[in-house]
């Protein structure tokens, strides 16, 4: 805090100081309060568009609140008890976890591997790095529409290939496992490059000497990846694990658009059997198809708690990984 104060004092021309105001008080006012004023835009916006909606959602969740009726009745925790007994909610929770694991784990492993490959002198480095990010800047709608066509039952490229090898066609949308795999593929496609770039940035901060020493000792590149790179970029790995866990708990666009490709009605239910309805999509169905805002708000809060729990578990797991590598 002292540096800006000095700069401030220096920049202020002495003659412009109005007489009569004791300097120490203004000085104090400036140093104590201005910094808060500077950071206030974020917090005011966060309060208006983050905290307030969060609290308001909690309030709404205590009501039987239908968007189409002007009366709202207080029902206490009824929405929550109903929700916890709702098998479709738990079905959506299972789908979310399953799609999350199927997408996040391969995605981060691929990303690590790609970053490792790119973290060495290469020609046209910038080209490769930009290419990595391309899937991420592609619109999610475009990605899902293209992938849904690839996974199409009748004319999809994947089924045609399977057919050509005599393996038979798969109705990707119909099955639980197959639809999860298809959706996970879309997520992996979009986010692997993004994570790879983050890993790459972290890897470049690892001192070269470590690799040189390891090479002299005869360690293979794989060994170097496992014993030097991964331990050195652990904080970054923890960060990506948490971010991608949060991301995968909130997946909605992929299953929604994937469902819309087979039937307009199955768009919000995530397939005819809700086989790929995620939590966020369940929330959408309740809130914006059935207009049950009270119930959807309760679902939002339970979902929030689930995200916190899952992220917490992941955090502990990844931290433990550090422990075992250190020893």
């Amino acid at each position, binding site marked *: 805090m002292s540096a800006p104060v000095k700069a401030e004092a220096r920049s202020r021309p002495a003659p412009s100081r109005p007489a009569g105001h004791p300097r120490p008080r203004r000085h104090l006012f*400036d140093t104590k309060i*201005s910094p808060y*004023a500077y950071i206030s*835009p974020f917090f005011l916006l966060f309060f208006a568009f983050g905290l307030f909606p969060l609290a308001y959602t909690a309030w709404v969740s205590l009501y039987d609140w239908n968007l189409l009726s002007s009366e709202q009745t207080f029902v206490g925790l009824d929405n929550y008890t109903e929700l916890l007994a709702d098998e479709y909610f738990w079905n959506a929770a299972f789908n979310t976890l399953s799609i999350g694991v199927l997408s996040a784990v391969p995605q981060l492993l691929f990303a690590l591997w790609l970053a490792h490959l790119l973290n060495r002198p290469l020609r046209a480095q910038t080209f490769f790095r930009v290419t990595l990010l391309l899937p991420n800047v592609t619109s999610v709608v475009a990605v899902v529409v293209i992938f849904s066509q690839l996974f199409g039952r009748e004319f999809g490229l994947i089924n045609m290939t399977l057919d050509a090898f005599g393996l038979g066609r798969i109705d990707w949308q119909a099955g639980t496992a197959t639809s999860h795999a298809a959706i996970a593929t879309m997520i992996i496609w979009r986010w692997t490059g993004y994570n790879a770039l983050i890993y790459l940035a972290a890897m470049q901060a690892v001192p070269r000497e470590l690799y040189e020493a390891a090479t002299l000792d005869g360690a293979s590149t794989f060994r170097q990846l496992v014993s030097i790179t991964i331990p050195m970029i652990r904080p970054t790995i923890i960060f990506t694990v948490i971010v991608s866990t949060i991301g995968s708990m909130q997946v909605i666009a992929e299953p929604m658009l994937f469902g819309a490709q*087979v039937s307009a009605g199955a768009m919000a239910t995530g397939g*005819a059997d809700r086989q790929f309805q995620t939590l966020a999509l369940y929330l959408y169905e309740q809130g*914006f198809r*059935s207009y049950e805002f009270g119930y959807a708000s309760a679902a939002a809060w339970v979902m929030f708690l689930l995200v916190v729990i899952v992220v917490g578990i992941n955090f502990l797991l990844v931290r433990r990984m550090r422990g075992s590598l250190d020893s």
Partner: protein
Amino acid sequence: MGRSRSRLLVPLVSAAMLMVAACGGGGGSGSGGQGAASGEKIKLTVGLFGDFGFGPLYEEFKKTHPNIEIEERQAAFADHHTNLAARLATGAGAADVEAIEVGYISSFTAQPDKFVNLRDYGAGEREKDYLDWKWKQGLAKDGSTIVGLGTDVGGLAMCYRRDLFEKAGLPSDRDEVSQLWPTWEKYIEVGKKFTEKAPEGAKFFDGPGEIFRAMIGQAPVGVYDENDNIVVATNPHVKQAWDLSVQMIQAGLSAKIGAFTPEWNTGFAKGSFATVVCPAWMTAYIQDQAKNAAGKWDIAAIPGGAGNSGGSHLTVPKQGKHHKEAAELVMFLTSPENQAKVFKSTGNFPSIPALYDQPDIQDFKKEFFNNAPVGKIFSDAARNLKPQHLGPKEGDVRTAIGNGLTRVEQGKQSPDEAWQQVLKDVEKIR
């Protein structure tokens, strides 16, 4: 004023301005004033799902209302209604004129305080023009408020591919085809015959969803009774429609393609299915999707008698600023002459029975459908309609049933299991 003060003020003010800017999009509608003085420039927005063929009518309206600009917003079907519900609830953002489809109308007429009563602008005298049931659908429960004026009705017919019928050795003339299937049972029989000799890659119909919807539309009572109770479990018509749909699936007649999906759209042109349920408004859709299949499609009577599927109303949400002008626009767009014009340009069929006998409607043919006399076909369909009460959550109930049929189609459940789950799902709809 010292500089330290402005240092404090600048970020605070900029933060406040950011907030105002961020909120600006939503606010500012107020409680809705009455009509503006004549001569003042007014912009009316019209919110629709898809193209209603209103374009030329706007131009005509502007001739008598030179101070009015009209802007049309189009959204996808489900999004349109979701957005409208949200905008009514939050009190801002709705267009001056909003279209509502019949499947949603009763959930909106249940909150008449959110809409301008069109009776206040002289819409009451339009009652005599309308099909009685269409008129009533646009009223609030107690009948005092006119929430919406009807645009079109979706009298049912069956579109079929002449070329595929010929290849399968079936008659292709539309009257002969109509006689093949007086009932849905006969339709299944025809389907079985078709399947025996069908060309490679062609199934008899697209998917069970629209057929089920049509069968429900033909019943005197659908998924709701008059008192807005869901009667899926007790109404024998619903179970019968379900059983027939299951039979069709089990006979292998379905192309397993959901309506309004990309594969469906290509299916029209590619000939993936030989028949599709055709409410009047669907003819425009097919024509749009299968431009290169002109002359291959034709229109016959629907099995099982007259029924309605779809159709819309135009409403004026109260939150708009120009009630008078918006109401005038609604009256104009739904006037008998203009409904006739819309029919001729798009295919959306008027809800004004007096038009049905007019020669220009009776003799109207559509080249795309092998010159089928669509005017005669759909006026017969609309005249014979029996009104059916639609409940507030028609869409949700139909989705639940449609998903059940898809589960049967995908082989994930036996018909019985699927039906049990449908009943359970429907029970949850409040």
